[in-house]
């Protein structure tokens, strides 16, 4: 028998090239992209040397401007220049209009599919985010000198399923491969955690432009275990700006409606005042009204603090609740990390310091820390650090449940459950002879359906007629590592199975994404075919590489026949991937997947028992 090979400690058994990967902080106000190069994570700059890309997209006659170029048009061309699209993504029209009544856009499209009317036609918030992602992706490919294997895109921990799904759709639309959606506070913890190598419980206070997150994590031997997360998907620095803008409008006696550009001006001056008051005691604000009148208003730090005090208090309430969910007291927290540009506001810092009774950490630039953490995770997920001990265990931010009789919500997966998770619950029929059942999936903490976010509705049909209460409908909720939900239902008492997979009814469905992708290609069919072919070829190469690596490591788990079977399937795929037929390559990938099914299972089981035995050796 041949001797088994063992590699030197710390070295991978399979030599591989460094894969290009990046982390993207897709922010409400600003976006950044970062990457790990020669062991260090840093943000990537554009050709002008700046690393911060304003999250603004302007739709001009014959061009789409992104970033600074778009920002300069945000007052003069407000209705065609989309600012803070992240606040709109994955939301319903009525939700947007009730939360942000004074946006300078003309909305159109349906309740579940809101669009903004620009001079380039109807634009969905997902498309706006896609433009930002495209821009950052191009920047990274230029800076790193090649196509990216994939990216990690960060989202607020408090984002619900529709918002996460829409963010992933935006990446798809931008042609970016998402390795993982990562929660922003968790990304920040990674950026800090690797530096200090600390063990214990930490709190991440993340106040961005439009969102607030608080996450409580336990750090232990490279594992970042999120114990609880909370926050508000519609509370951020923008709201501070709004508070100041309202104050200004009040001071000069403005009554709405006012022009979109004055609306934008008020917001910009609100933001300017907020920024100035981080270092000054007072600020002079200039306003030019629609009737050309000029006003100068003085705003002191004291007045500003009063204007935003209730917002800051709201964040502390979320902190208290998350600590409770985590079963941790404020005293047990050994470190508090500040993330997001809005934590520069002195009142925020002092209130957080009082709440946790310690000075919060701000050593990494709060604007960059999320992108840096995402880059570190991207580097690991791309496979550049096979021996990394780091592991992130994240949670669902909001409870997931179903509507039951009387408009009540039955929770299936409570908030702060570690993901991935699969949970099933059984329901029964209400009436004799009932043959169909409406399944309504909801997300939120409240007990009434009307107070929760409706994610999807579907019907389970073909239930055999039985007396009320006799049928057993098993509904299964699955949340994957990206925090995305899928739901299936089946009637099991008679053995009749009928199940359905759902996607959130908000935002874009797969058909729409495909259409949009097609629309964005200049030479339609030929372009799409070329892209599909390339995607399948890349995928084929990736699959072959990973299976060969697995065989090299674990072929002892297979008998001779099985080995030759897999080798055949590999060869078949390798041959096919030389062809020009995307479908044939896809089929060959599926065939290889099938051939390796048992191998994959045995590898998984063997790694579990190896992990357990390794641990008992540690104990000795």
């Amino acid at each position, binding site marked *: 028998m041949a001797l088994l090979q063992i590699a030197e400690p710390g070295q991978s058994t399979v030599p591989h090239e460094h894969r290009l990967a990046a982390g993207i902080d897709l922010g409400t106000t600003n976006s950044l992209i970062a990457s790990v190069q020669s062991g260090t994570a840093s943000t990537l700059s554009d050709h002008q040397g700046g690393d911060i890309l304003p999250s603004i997209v302007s739709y001009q006659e014959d061009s789409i401007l992104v970033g600074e170029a778009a920002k300069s048009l945000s007052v003069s061309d407000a209705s065609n220049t989309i600012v803070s699209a992240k606040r709109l993504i994955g939301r319903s029209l009525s939700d947007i209009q009730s939360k942000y009544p004074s946006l300078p856009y003309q909305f159109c499209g349906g309740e579940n599919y809101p669009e903004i009317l620009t001079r380039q036609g109807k634009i969905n918030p997902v498309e706006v985010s896609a433009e930002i992602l495209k821009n950052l992706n191009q920047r990274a490919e230029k800076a790193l000198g090649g196509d990216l294997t994939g990216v990690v895109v960060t989202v607020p921990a408090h984002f619900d399923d529709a918002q996460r799904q829409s963010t992933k759709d935006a990446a798809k639309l931008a042609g970016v491969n998402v390795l993982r959606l990562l929660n922003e506070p968790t990304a920040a913890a990674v950026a800090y955690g690797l530096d200090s190598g600390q063990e214990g419980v930490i709190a991440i206070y993340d106040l961005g432009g439009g969102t607030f997150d608080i996450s409580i994590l336990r750090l232990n031997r490279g594992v970042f275990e999120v114990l609880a997360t909370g926050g508000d998907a519609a509370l951020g620095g923008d709201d501070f700006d709004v508070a100041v803008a309202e104050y200004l409008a009040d001071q000069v006696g403005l009554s709405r409606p006012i022009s979109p550009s004055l609306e934008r001006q008020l917001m910009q001056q609100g933001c300017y005042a907020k920024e100035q008051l981080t270092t000054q005691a007072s600020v002079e604000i200039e306003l030019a009204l629609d009737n050309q009148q000029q006003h100068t208003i003085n705003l002191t730090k004291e007045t500003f603090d009063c204007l935003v005090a209730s917002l800051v208090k709201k964040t502390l309430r979320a902190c208290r609740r998350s600590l409770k969910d985590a079963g941790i007291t404020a005293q047990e927290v050994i470190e508090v990390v500040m993330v997001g540009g809005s934590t520069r506001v002195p009142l925020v810092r002092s209130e957080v310091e009082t709440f946790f009774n310690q000075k919060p950490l701000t050593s990494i630039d709060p604007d960059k820390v999320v992108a840096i953490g995402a880059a570190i*995770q991207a580097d690991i*997920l791309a496979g550049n650090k096979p021996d990394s001990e780091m592991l992130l265990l994240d949670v669902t931010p909001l409870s997931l449940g179903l509507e039951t009789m009387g408009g009540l919500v039955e929770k299936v997966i409570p908030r702060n459950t570690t993901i991935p998770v699969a949970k099933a619950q059984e329901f029964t029929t209400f009436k004799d002879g009932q043959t169909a059942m409406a399944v309504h999936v909801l997300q939120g903490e409240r007990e009434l359906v009307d107070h929760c976010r409706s994610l999807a509705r579907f019907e389970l049909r073909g239930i055999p007629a039985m007396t009320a209460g006799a049928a057993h409908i098993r509904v299964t909720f699955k949340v994957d590592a990206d925090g995305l939900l899928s739901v299936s239902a089946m009637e099991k008492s008679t053995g009749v199975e009928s199940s359905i997979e759902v996607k959130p009814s908000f935002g874009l469905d797969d058909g729409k994404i495909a259409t949009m992708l097609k629309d964005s290609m200049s030479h339609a069919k030929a372009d799409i075919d070329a892209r599909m072919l390339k995607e399948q070829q890349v995928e084929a190469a990736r699959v072959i590489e990973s299976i060969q690596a697995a065989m090299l490591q674990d072929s002892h788990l297979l008998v001779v026949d099985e080995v030759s079977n897999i080798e055949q399937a590999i060869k078949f795929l390798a041959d096919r991937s030389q062809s020009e037929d995307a479908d044939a390559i896809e089929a060959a990938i599926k065939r290889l997947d099938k051939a390796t099914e048992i191998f994959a299972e045995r590898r998984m089981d063997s790694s579990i028992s190896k992990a357990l035995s390794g641990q008992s050796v540690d104990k000795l």
Partner: protein
Amino acid sequence: MNYFQLFGIELSFDVDLSQLSQTYQTLQKAVHPDKFAHASAQEQLLAVQKSAQINDGYQTLKQPLERAKYLLTLRGVVLPDEQQSFSDNSFLMRQMELRERLAEIRFSDDIDSALADAQKVLTQEYQVHFEQMRAQINANNADENAKASENLRKLTFYHKLNIEVERLEESLFDD
């Protein structure tokens, strides 16, 4: 493979929680989908399944009432469902008393101490039933298993009362 086997621990109600947490992290390091981000679709799917299973196992073994329920079910004890009527009348009376007590906290002169007192009573009574259940489960025979499942049901009532106290606290102090 049951959850005790999955975590490589003895089939017993008494679990070393810090050891359990270490094992949990070790297992997740082996199977978490992040470790398979570059693997085949086949392995990625399996990783999600295994990882979800380990998460569920951890939650089941970590929480004492869930653990009791799981262990009794493994022993073939059929647990009564929630709708089934309760035979212990004095227990039901006690539950109603406690419920009334919680409802009155909102109107008491010193809300803080009324809340603290109620919590203390709940904890004490919970502990009594919990220790009984623990001994019954550890005795491990048909008779004691049945008694344990009865106690488990009572503990579930206390668990629900505790959730109500938390809700009450939130509504009282979240201005």
